[in-house]
């Protein structure tokens, strides 16, 4: 076992994959200097043709990556802040994502769009605190939100190897977290959820950095004799519905812990699918970000983000409710 920061795991994944596959390159703003460390040191080893600093032209460099992908490359495109995905929404959602369908399968578009530092970061205010993964799932783009360093490593490699466009959200709240990781790190294919902690009484679906909080809550609840399963979809699209079904079949109770806006967020999708298809014994609950932009002051910011107390309350609520069947 080694100890590694989440962002180091990302950097290692990128380096390993660039070493293995010469068609992989990284492009974005300041990737040579590497503000978030994902591409740190790479330019020295791979040169400026594979570590490409761009002008501030998100639409163009996003489209550029697609063109390079059509010509056989596997670009990784870095965005410095989550809302830059809004600027690149058209070329990702309308061009890269649809190209394979539109051409009847003539080509694939293996591009990975990475945001190293998505979500709120205390004091960065409204335009730098979005965590917009539900938007891409809505639009049909494969979407990954890894929770741990090992998953970040494995899923980044998995994303790069995907033949479809993938948006990769590395939550700001865990980028600097240091963790134990296995010595042998492997690629993780998209679409496989993960049980972080097994339990029988209730399934907590947690995404990204909230997995860590969910595990703390589950540990606390265990002391009271409540056995909570913490389940992480890891990729939002494709979503491991069978994995979640297995968990809910066991527990019958569901709480979703999700840091996207409430309306039409990921938690909405999980509750909807569960309500429609899974054997819930009581009504499910969700704990999400509020439907509002993040204000600057830290007190206000924290008031809008999902937190552990809310999760505890929600878990207790689904446990005390009477079973319907």
């Amino acid at each position, binding site marked *: 076992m080694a100890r590694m920061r989440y962002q180091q795991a990302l950097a290692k994944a990128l380096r390993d994959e660039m070493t293995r596959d010469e068609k992989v390159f990284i492009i974005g703003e300041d990737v040579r200097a590497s503000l978030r460390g994902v591409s740190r040191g790479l330019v020295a080893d791979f040169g400026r043709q594979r570590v490409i600093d761009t002008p501030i032209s998100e639409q163009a*460099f996003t489209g550029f990556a697609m063109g390079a*992908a059509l*010509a056989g490359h596997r670009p990784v495109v870095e965005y410095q802040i989550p809302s830059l995905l809004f600027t690149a929404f058209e070329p990702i959602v309308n061009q890269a994502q649809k190209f*394979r*369908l539109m*051409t009847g399968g003539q080509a694939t578009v293996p591009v990975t769009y990475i945001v190293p530092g998505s979500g709120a970061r205390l004091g960065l205010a409204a335009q730098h605190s979005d965590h917009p993964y539900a938007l891409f799932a809505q639009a049909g783009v494969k979407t990954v939100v890894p929770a741990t360093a090992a998953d970040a490593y494995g899923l980044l490699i998995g994303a790069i190897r995907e033949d479809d466009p993938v948006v990769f959200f590395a939550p700001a709240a865990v980028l600097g977290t240091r963790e134990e990781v296995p010595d042998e790190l492997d690629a993780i294919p998209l679409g496989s959820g993960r049980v972080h902690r097994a339990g029988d009484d209730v399934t907590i679906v947690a995404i990204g950095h909230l997995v860590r909080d969910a595990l703390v809550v589950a540990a606390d609840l265990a002391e009271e004799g409540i056995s909570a399963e913490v389940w992480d979809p890891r990729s939002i699209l494709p979503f491991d519905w069978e994995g979640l079904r297995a968990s809910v079949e066991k527990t019958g109770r569901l709480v979703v812990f999700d840091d996207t806006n409430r309306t039409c967020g990921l938690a909405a999708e999980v509750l909807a699918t569960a309500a429609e298809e899974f054997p819930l014994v009581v009504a499910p609950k969700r704990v999400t970000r509020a439907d509002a932009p993040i204000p600057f002051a830290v007190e206000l910011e924290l008031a809008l983000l999902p937190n552990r107390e809310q999760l505890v309350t929600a878990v207790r609520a689904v446990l005390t409710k009477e079973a319907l069947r």
Partner: protein
Amino acid sequence: MRRDLYRTMRTIRRFEEQIVELVNANEIAGVTHEYIGQEAVASGVCAALRRDDVITSTHRGHGHVIAKGAAVRGMMAELLGRTTGLNHARGGSMHIADVSLGIYGANGIVAAGAPIAAGAAWAGVQAGSDRVAVCFFGDGAVNQGVLHETMNMAGIWKLPLLFVCENNGYAVSFAQEEATAGSIVERAAAYGMPAERVDGMDAEVVLEATERAVARARAGEGPSFVECTTYRFVGHHTAERTMGLGYRTDEEIERWRLRDPLLVTGGRMSPDDVAAVDAEVEALLQEALAFARESPRPQAADAMEYVYATGPAPRQGVSA
């Protein structure tokens, strides 16, 4: 070469005329954007290209796609929504493509093809080849920001990329002079690339300008910009006729028709030659139409095909 240029233009013209009929007869779904009047541009530009060169096209893409060498029968079948179409009936007019010929697609979004072509141009350099990429776009597209971002990238990275602006005077109903501050070629020149304005009704002139630009690009000297002044003889799309937009006069159209690119180039050929090519094109088109009409339509059950290359199929709109 002149004969080839004429043949390409004639193929495009007749293809388009055929398409208009088929759209009006509801044999083709949706709307299509005709290239009639602008044939010299695609024909002239693509005559300077190799098979491994890449193009990105626009909503008004049939001409580019034909000129770059796509099978007319595959295009016809595509537009008729048949599985033998180039895109297996998934793309239609606005997304028609043949990636194997370097045709990275028509595009429903103005200027969206430009950065895609830039990526392809870069990839050519990485591969050690001297292939080039061309992005076609209209006068309206020069006011889209992404085109500028792409011109800048092409400039700083010296990409083997050719920007071809087809200035047909209008973006739908909006006149180019009213829409555009300054001049189009000056904008391009500001990125440090050679930019010239040429007669887009004369395929030979277009070809020459393209050859200069392509030679530069293949020699590693970077991007160029060619503005081709041209005109569309018909509406913005097949549905315009019924809309009465009234943004241009019949006189204006007639004036431009005197410079019909088929007349310009055909007028330099012997009448026999022209007749022979016309007959050849006619046969090709009739064969294509017959082929398309005989081809099967796709099955509803296959509607989710091709969405993803790997992984689970996307979800249906109802659960099991």
